[in-house]
């Protein structure tokens, strides 16, 4: 048997007269079959938490002075940081692709009188926006824009 679900999962408000056995989790949850991608998606939250702390550290270094900023930049060249950033990039792409795949069908058939565009158009728009914004940020960070 699989692991137990929450003991009250799908229990009626008013218990019946027959004794029932506890509900069981889907046997493939969390790491087999399609659940694997979902669980992986959940775990990317840990990467974003660490990235959040790193962003706070960057802001702190910026506000403290040039020496702290230079020290932080040197630390970021450590291979562990580089590997983490690659991992973060992979997880952002994974979450982005997963989110974009689901987003079009999440749109209601209409908002008031307005109908959303067809799903392929929404999906295409998301990718164009993602690539466009990434390109603009890349140009800014490389110094090609707003130098």
């Amino acid at each position, binding site marked *: *048997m699989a692991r137990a679900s929450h003991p009250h999962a799908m229990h*009626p408000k*008013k218990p019946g007269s027959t004794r*029932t056995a506890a509900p*069981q989790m889907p046997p493939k949850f969390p790491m087999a079959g399609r659940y694997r991608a979902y669980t992986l998606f959940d775990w990317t939250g840990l990467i974003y938490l660490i990235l959040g702390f790193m962003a706070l550290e960057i802001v702190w270094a910026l506000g403290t002075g040039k020496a702290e900023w230079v020290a932080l930049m040197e630390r970021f060249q450590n291979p562990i940081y580089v590997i983490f950033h690659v991992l973060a990039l992979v997880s952002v792409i994974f979450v982005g692709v997963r989110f974009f795949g689901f987003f079009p069908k999440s749109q209601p058939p*209409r908002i008031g009188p307005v109908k959303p565009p067809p799903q392929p158009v929404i999906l295409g728009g998301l990718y164009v926006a993602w690539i466009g914004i990434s390109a603009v940020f890349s140009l800014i960070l490389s110094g090609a824009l707003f130098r």
Partner: protein
Amino acid sequence: MSDLPKKKFVITRFDPDVDEVPKTQEYEIPVEPDWKVLDALNFIKDEIDGTLSHRWSCRMAVCGSCGMMVNGEPKLTCKETLADYGDTVEVSPLANFPIVRDLVVELDGFMDKFKSVKPWIIRAKELAVDEGPMRQSPEELEEFKQFSMCINCMLCYSACPVVANEPEFLGPAAIALGHRYNVDSRDEGAERRNEVFRGEGTVFSCSFANECSEVCPKHVDPAAAVNQAKFNAVIDWAKGLVLPRGGES
């Protein structure tokens, strides 16, 4: 019959009068080439062990009664061809549901959730008979038709990791049904249902695993309905904040 190939069935058994927890029992039976999983269960019940309990009715994927876990996946057993499975087939009751007996699960919790979304057309004022029928264009029908195809087989509940962990969660089929009425042009009860949808354990508990849509035998796509309902509930809430009288005319 004896010349037919045999398959082993590992079936979950639970007798509430005797067993503390469910156990499994194995049966090896000859199977016809065109048999469905349900045919094998019926053969076991009719020919080998009359004490086996399972639900079924229409045998054509319409009634939604014969949902079970087959090799760990929620399936309609009347739709699953045995030839697609190996020599051993595991059949257990739907996951996430209390087990009443063998392969039969408790349905009342599901029915409680269904009722809470008010799955009927709500009108501010009923039309008088002499006013004729409420007309609906094919485009208006198309907006909810997909969500009305649900046969209440509960496979989506069995696949959902949120249902497994949050007992308050309304679940995919109930939300899809509520949403189906919310987008029905004849209905005027969206505000009342959205109050339910914005409550604890409702649409926002969904973490979009999308498993409900993957296992749905009728391609209802409950995950789409749940997330459209989220969108509508937020729009409804925002209208209440920025428009006079919540945007009500």
